């Protein structure tokens, strides 16, 4: 498998298209013949990250990078950033609006679930500038 990179734009508050980037990423991985359990883990983590961009940010991008050793997803937004990452990582903590909660999100499970689904997970955020979430699943021979 060669090195491959795909980038998808994600718009704020676009709840109709929300999930399209993750859907494209899932399809791409499936077509490459990646193990279905790994595809599922990446799809869930990516979708959580994509929903976070739609719900909490002013917009951003989701990037998929594939090489023979790993699958890496980077979710990058243009702000506003997370004031307290430690608090945001706590299960159940959420700043989501009532509208978002009515759609079944905003339970404060997103970041912990992304961490659970992936082998490497980092959140970098500068309040006033933006957030970058990096998630990686390591591949073994045969995946």
């Amino acid at each position, binding site marked *: 498998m060669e090195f491959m990179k795909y980038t998808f734009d994600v718009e704020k508050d676009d*709840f*109709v298209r*929300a*999930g399209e980037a*993750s*859907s494209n990423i*899932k399809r791409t991985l499936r077509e490459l013949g990646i193990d*279905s359990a790994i595809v*599922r883990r990446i*799809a*869930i983590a*990516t*979708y*959580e990250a994509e*929903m976070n961009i739609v719900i909490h940010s002013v917009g951003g991008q989701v990037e998929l990078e594939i090489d023979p050793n790993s699958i890496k997803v980077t979710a990058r937004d243009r702000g506003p950033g997370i004031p307290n990452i430690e608090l945001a990582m706590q299960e159940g903590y959420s700043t989501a609006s009532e509208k978002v909660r009515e*759609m*079944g*999100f*905003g*339970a*404060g*499970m*997103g970041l*912990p*679930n992304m961490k*659970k689904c992936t082998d490497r997970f980092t959140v970098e955020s500068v309040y006033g500038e933006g957030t970058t979430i990096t998630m990686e699943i390591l591949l073994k021979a045969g995946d």
Partner: protein
Amino acid sequence: MIQNVNKLEMKYMVMKYTNGRAQTMKLCEIKDILKAEVLCGDEFLENEVSYAFGSDLMSDVLAYVKGRTILLTGLINSQVIRTAEMADLTAIVFVRGKRPENDIVNLAKQNNMILFTTKDSMYTASGKLFCNGLEGINLD
């Protein structure tokens, strides 16, 4: 009530003699038990599921549900279909007679899903399926 207890006892006897493996249930049986209407995916009625999960919280579905599970929900927005897609779920029951818009049904069709709607509430629909031997997921 007595009838229900007997059904539950029967279920646990079956569990015991199948070494704790969950019973599977055909989607056409679920359709009959819930007197449900199929909104799309008739061709999948012979498929089977091993578990059911009822929730209006998509975050919980993403965090806990995997494989061969039917989702019962009162939400009818496109994120329900996206959530199911990501979690590899292919069967959804909308409770309380709820009916999603056509574009949402089309999104489900594109993902080879079967959608049902039942007049039962979440509690009633879940209870009926449980009494007939369909288990909840293992939370561990």
